[in-house]
């Protein structure tokens, strides 16, 4: 249970609101095709929590949360997935980068309520069986971080960068990784890590 990794506050609101379900639950989505209404109000009272099913790392979670919640806060505060980091919280640093349906996006600028029906992949989902993803191994091999705070975002972004076909040259890697800031300035090592992981990712996907 993700909740077990959270600090124990007794029967707190967080664990009360969180009920993890393992079944695919797409039919519960409001606003599914066939709904006759012009728009489907998912919330009628802005102060009542929204109920939603969010799929993270292949697993459905049924959650109730404030409509204002960002995907980043949902991951960290509701699901205990604290690998995804909060840097600026305004789309300027890339620390919160996750994959949505395989594309890299910023979880801080994503309203959690909008990701129903989409697949969220976080850094925790890169190594589901405890075996490091080639990109994670490459970051270690090339010492591509110092403090490590930006690293989960860098790695998620780097995986997508390779998958997009934007890791063709050093210049390409630098340009397409520019949305991830590193205050320790590990940039040269990050470029080397991406170059190492690129062929390894191809091999891994062939296996």
């Amino acid at each position, binding site marked *: 249970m993700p909740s077990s990794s959270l600090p124990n506050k007794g029967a707190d609101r967080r664990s009360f609101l969180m009920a993890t379900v393992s079944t695919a639950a797409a039919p519960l989505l409001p606003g599914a095709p066939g709904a006759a*209404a012009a*728009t489907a109000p998912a919330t009628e009272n*802005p102060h009542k929590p929204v109920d939603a099913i969010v799929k993270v790392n292949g697993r459905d979670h049924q959650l109730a949360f404030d409509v204002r919640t960002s995907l980043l806060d949902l991951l960290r505060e509701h699901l205990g997935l604290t690998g995804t980091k909060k840097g600026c919280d305004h789309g300027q640093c890339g620390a919160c980068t996750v994959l949505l349906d395989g594309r890299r996006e910023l979880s801080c600028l*994503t309203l959690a309520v*909008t990701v129903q029906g989409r697949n969220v992949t976080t850094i925790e989902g890169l190594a589901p069986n405890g075996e490091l993803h080639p990109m994670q191994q490459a970051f270690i091999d090339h010492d591509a971080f110092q403090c490590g705070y930006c690293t989960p975002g860098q790695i998620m*972004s780097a995986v*997508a960068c390779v998958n997009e076909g934007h890791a063709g040259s050093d210049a390409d890697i630098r340009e*397409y990784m*520019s949305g991830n800031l590193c205050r320790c300035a590990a940039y040269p090592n990050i470029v080397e890590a991406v170059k190492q992981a690129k062929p390894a990712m191809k091999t891994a996907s062939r296996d």
Partner: protein
Amino acid sequence: MQAFIYERATNPAGAVATASHQNGAHYLAGGTTLFDLMKLDVMRPQTVIDINPLGGTAHGRIELGRSGLRLGALARMADAADHPQIREQYPVIAQSLQLAASQQIRNMASLGGNVLQRTRCPYFRDVAYAACNKRDPGSGCAAIEGFNRSQAVLGTSEKCIAAYAGDFAQALIALDAAVEIAGSEGTRTIPFTALHRKPGEAPDKETTLLPGELIVSFLVPAAAWTRRSVYLKVRDRESYEFALASAAVALDQQNGTVRNARIALGGVATAPWRATEAEELLSGKPINEPNAKLAAEAAFATAKGYGHNDFKIELGKRTLSRALQQAAALEI
């Protein structure tokens, strides 16, 4: 952040009907402007209408034909920036998107939302500054007397000097695009240049969109100038930064002589800016350094600096001059 009612659009007409009848309703696409400014309490929608479910309709499609390019407003920046035919046939479009934001944001932000992005003026973005006519009409402008390095030098008024921050809009102007808009009375199409307003007396009114209207698509005609087009962006760092000055240039050139020049400027103006005087000056002439410089002078003839941003006038001229020469030299 103010709480809001969240609604999910199930069809375009329904979304428009809902938005038209609710005060304080805002459409949500990528959310990279709206959610950001909601967190800052700068935008306070009462209802948020999520239009992302319309992405599977014509709103989300990119189509190329003989007559031109149709960009659905819900297509993402990255979809257009990485589109091989757009890169080849409409380079200024792809370049303007490619040079904007980061790949994460380009994956999120819609093209419709991109042209409607709000200014990055720090006095607008921070509610701790009481004076901002754009955010709070009648409250004044803290930028005119403040630190105004990033603000505009063209199209300013005594009420507002905030710069328009986007890039893609300039490419649309350079390619003479139109914008298709859905409203409660049906759909209308207007030249893209008629979408944005200069601040004048009402900086809070940034566009000519009526309440509830929704951008459906951008229509870019296949013209003699589309291939010979360039977006040049000058900024404080090489990537992931807004423009200090930018120029979108499209040239119809024959035997080294300009038949038609189309020019738009970014980073320096309060709204996406067409430099008509510069265009006219180049008509019938070859693009060489002297003529490019003359055109740049004409483009900035009415420019006004506010102290910290005075450098933008010279920077803007040089940017345009270089963009013109780059476009003229393209091997097509």
